[in-house]
């Protein structure tokens, strides 16, 4: 493992610094995606006709190869982090919008009727009833988006050292140091697993009201339906659910984080 943690000087970052950069480039898009997805999903819930075209649009965005996306953006945002962050944020919508829509729709009609009958207005109803009940579904979406984002950041290496840990792959080639490639892949995978675990932990803290049996079902579900978080350049995995399947509150999409290797 000699040289695993020794970063070439052209990266201008220590190992830990690269991890910080990688997390920033991966998590910021998910955060932006969530902020965008919340109002969009709410509009889709309110106006049912809007949902199919929105799903279509997010899926089309997702179908644009990331490398092509970066190249187009370079004209406007240059060889910067922003160029990586924008596509990743847009990609996250393909999971987050359906996750939130399904989560909000999972609120039972009786619960909704009871809330209306108690004189709880629409804004309060959204914040105090719909959103909290949608938390499990939203977190299922966040887990997929986060793991996928962590792996996709590496592609940024191809547009001039914007790939954080992904840059190590290029340097491994450049300096004939295969250990750097191993370092890149292993570290990315570990980051994805840890981020996923952190999200599961937060979800559990936020939802003490979830039946234990549903939690068990959650652990068992997923597998093949989960996306393949491929770290390879240009290729977003094929397995992402493009719509509707993300959760009635009991199903889950479990990212197979290990396949980031």
């Amino acid at each position, binding site marked *: 493992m000699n040289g695993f943690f020794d970063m070439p000087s052209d990266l201008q970052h220590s190992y830990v610094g690269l991890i910080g950069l990688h997390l920033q480039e991966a998590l910021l898009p998910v955060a932006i995606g969530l902020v965008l997805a919340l109002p969009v999903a709410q509009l889709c819930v309110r106006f049912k006709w809007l949902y199919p075209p929105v799903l279509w649009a997010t899926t089309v965005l997702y179908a644009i190869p990331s490398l092509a996306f970066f190249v187009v953006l370079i004209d406007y945002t240059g060889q910067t982090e922003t160029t990586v962050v924008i596509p990743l944020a847009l990609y996250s919508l393909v999971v987050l919008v359906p996750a939130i829509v399904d989560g909000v729709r999972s609120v039972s009609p009786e*619960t*909704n009727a*009871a809330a*209306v009958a108690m004189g709880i207005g629409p804004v309060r109803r959204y914040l105090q009833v719909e959103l909290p009940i949608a938390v499990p579904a939203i977190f299922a979406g966040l887990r997929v988006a986060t793991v996928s984002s962590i792996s996709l950041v590496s592609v940024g290496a191809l547009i001039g050292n914007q790939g954080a840990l992904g840059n190590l792959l290029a340097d491994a080639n450049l300096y004939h140091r295969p250990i750097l490639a191993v370092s890149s892949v292993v570290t990315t995978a570990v980051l994805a697993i840890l981020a996923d675990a952190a999200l599961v932990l937060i979800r559990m803290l936020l939802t003490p009201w979830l039946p234990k049996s549903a939690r068990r079902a959650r652990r068992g579900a997923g597998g093949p339906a989960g996306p393949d978080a491929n770290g390879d350049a240009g290729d977003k995995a094929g397995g992402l659910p493009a719509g509707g399947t993300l959760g009635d509150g009991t199903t889950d999409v479990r990212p197979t984080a290990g396949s980031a290797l």
Partner: protein
Amino acid sequence: MISIEAVSKRYPDGTVAVDGLSLEIPDRSITVLVGPSGCGKTTTLRMINRMIELSGGRILIDGEDIQHKPVNALRRSMGYVIQNAGLFQHRTIVDNIGTVPRMLGWSKAKARERSMELMERVGLDTSMAKRYPYQLSGGQQQRVGVARALAADPPVLLMDEPFSAVDPVVRRGLQEELLRIQSELGKTIVFVTHDIDEAIRVGDMIAVLRTGGKLAQYAPPDELLSRPADAAVEDFLGADRGIRGLSFFGTEQLPLERNGIVAVDATAAQVAERAADLPQLLVVDVDGRPLGWADAARLRASGARNDTAGLLASGQTFRLGEDSLRVALDCAVLSPTGWAAAVDGEGRAVGVVSQEAIARAIREAHGRRGTAPVDVGAAR
């Protein structure tokens, strides 16, 4: 008093859910809206708290048009109970019940105290306060639903098929609980159900609606059972409505044979003092509780002699004055002798009565109330 005046609900696609419905819903009583699915009963209920806006007519509460009240204030002045309870699954029981009080600006402590009080009132152990809805059974959840509706002490309670989703035994318990709570609180309750038996059990007044949102009949349950307005209502009431109607007649007036009871240690001389024309006597223990029926002729010959082995089972008994004629008749039908035994509150026998005497009492009771059963088929 809730006055529903010529209310209609028409949807843009032309469907008429409610058509010119007028009802006077009296205060402090349970008014049931009952009818087959598609009769507009839930629509009518939801127009009272404006979850559905009416498209014709008006609804007044104590003379005030509901359209003139702010909608959320109107809704908070009415408790609402729904099928499956519709609890907030992400909130504890105590927080669920305290929802409306908190919105009305009560302090957390006061809302909590009120929740605890209500949990006891609806028959829930306060140790459940910190649990989440998923940890409760369906029946318990429904009790929480009722407590939540009562939280801010609204004068009006709207109940939308509240007990339809629980099993029959639990439903029976919830209905009795509702009647008990109502006897304590005296709310104005509008209760929607598709179950006519439930309507008869809980209703002080019953409005039978027919498909298309028209009122078929509006009457107290005993009148509904004895004089259905038309064949459709009669059909909806189902079979044995005559027997069911007996639930509304008391047993106070039954001509009891008080001389038909004999103690288990009675001598032949004591037996001889009993009514001579009865074919059998009810043998009771030293405390007066029924043991069983014995052949009168045999007793007169030899006395009771503490002989309980040869007795016919006394079967079910009815509590005089508390149980209805229906229960008394049922006891007589089930009795091996065709006679029913009446007991007092402590279970001591007070008299016996024959099926024939009960049948005469039924006819007299109908005559007193002027509710002589009408055969709708013959009237047609």
